[in-house]
């Protein structure tokens, strides 16, 4: 069974994001970029399934500008067998991303596609579910445990009410939650090895995609901030302040 793990290049989660001067985007010049943390978990899960002998090949796929090759090289260094970059510089909504991924799936015929549950840049949490819908296959979102049994997968999902387990027929789409696994660190020799692995670059325009209108995102603004309040010295003082504020 082949597995596809999807990888998005995003601003590193440790960076304090700044809005640009025109208010139509965020500052990316000179900012550290990384693989979306949830996607690292997706790659790791694919590797573990390969190591268990469940999967035969792990393909990392990204959509983005040519710089996204860096994140694919990271996936290769982690242990993915090969990578595909669908080069696209135009703005892309999740529906568009799902259509692109569907084209790759039609070609590669994987048994499992693993994606992060959300990208920490636009925080939309959509692409995996949309891909599953277009593909007409099951989705198991927010996975914290995954077990493959022949033609089926048993997936434990982190949902608001607790832990839900569902069974899905393969092929299927799984999206990762943070507790699915802890991604491995990449070692220097693996980075060297990764340079020799195959990374195919395909132009999005060559994929015969449906035309999808775009949405206009504007007015980037900071959220209303919470001001630092006061510090109290004792529980008695806390109670007094809460009383004056009508909280008790």
């Amino acid at each position, binding site marked *: 069974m082949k597995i596809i793990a999807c990888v998005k290049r995003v601003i590193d989660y440790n960076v304090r994001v700044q809005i640009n001067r025109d208010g139509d985007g965020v500052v990316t010049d000179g900012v550290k970029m990384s693989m979306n943390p949830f996607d690292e978990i997706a790659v790791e899960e694919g590797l573990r399934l390969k190591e268990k002998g469940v999967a035969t090949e792990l393909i990392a796929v990204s959509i983005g500008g040519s710089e996204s090759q860096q994140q694919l090289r990271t996936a290769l260094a982690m242990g993915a067998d090969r990578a595909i970059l669908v080069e696209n510089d135009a703005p892309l909504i999740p529906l568009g991303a799902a259509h692109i991924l569907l084209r790759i799936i039609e070609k590669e015929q994987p048994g499992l596609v693993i994606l992060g549950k959300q990208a920490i*840049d636009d925080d939309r949490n959509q692409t995996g*579910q949309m891909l*599953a819908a277009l593909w007409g296959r099951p989705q198991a979102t927010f996975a*914290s445990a995954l077990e493959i049994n022949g033609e089926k997968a048993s997936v434990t999902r982190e949902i608001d009410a607790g832990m839900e387990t569902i*069974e*899905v027929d393969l092929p299927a789409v799984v999206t990762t939650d943070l507790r699915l696994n802890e991604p491995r660190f990449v070692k220097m020799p693996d980075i060297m090895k990764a340079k020799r692995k195959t990374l195919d670059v395909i132009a999005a325009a060559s994929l015969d995609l449906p035309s999808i209108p775009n949405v206009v995102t504007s*007015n980037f603004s900071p959220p209303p901030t919470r001001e630092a309040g006061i510090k109290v010295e004792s529980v008695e003082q*806390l109670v007094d302040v809460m009383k004056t504020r009508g909280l008790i």
Partner: protein
Amino acid sequence: MSTTLLVAEHDGAQLNQSTARALTGLAPLGDVDIIVFAENGSAVCAEAAALAGVGQVLQVDSPDNSHQLAAVVAPQIAAIAAPYSVIAMPSTTFGKDLAPRAAALLGVHQVSDVMEAIDAKNFRRPIYAGNVIVHENVEAFDKVVLTMRTASFQAAVAGSDAAPIVPTETTADLPDHTRFVKLEAQASERPDLQGAAWVVAGGRGVGSEENFAVIYDLADKLGAGCGASRAAVDAGYCPNDMQVGQTGKIIAPDVYIALGISGAIQHITGIKDAGTIIAVNKDEEAPIFDVADIGIVGDLFDLAPRIGAALGK
């Protein structure tokens, strides 16, 4: 007729409060129809029909809907969507799972985590863990799917007249490739974290699963719900459904008491809309004090029982 359809979240017996919150967020778009997918949704429909601002309630009863799996519900939404220009769900794990599947079947865009619906084509939503708010214009689509950020809205209250409940059938081919196996929920007498007026939360500073009793005790004295940081959940101190933050629950209680939580940006994202944040931390430099309305520097094991004694009911 309403042009907005809200998919109800419920557990088969009761309407989840997230539905009433989402309804408030949709109020700028006019009356809203609510659709209930259930095995037998009569009780849930009655609750939904009582809410102010509801046009009608569509009751779709079927054994297929007993677990409201996204793969099963999404085709039914797509089959019934034609008259509606906006199809909304709460931005809970229920809505986040289902909404994109429905949107893709309809071939339309989804706006996630709507914090303000300006009109049927213009929305405001957070990105980058809530550090940036953007305006999304979806005029290019004649229909759109939304998930509503429940913490941004108060729950809608009961209206004067109940809306009509309309038994509805959908004609959609439902897949059997996805099957519910089980739900492990923590039985708890405490108020639900997402609806509680007061929440007490513990972080890594609590130190162990046994020590978390300090958090539960304080919550019980105050009649509060219980939350936690990701670090506390990852360390196994408490169940993961207690996690508050970017990747946990986004909540808006009247009072949030954080004990032994440093105040990482991903955690703060989950409590930005809280009425009053009270922080207990032994490190006076902890970033949680930058957002807390009231802070006390000190040891949580010393302070928590004393706060419980002073405020307890």
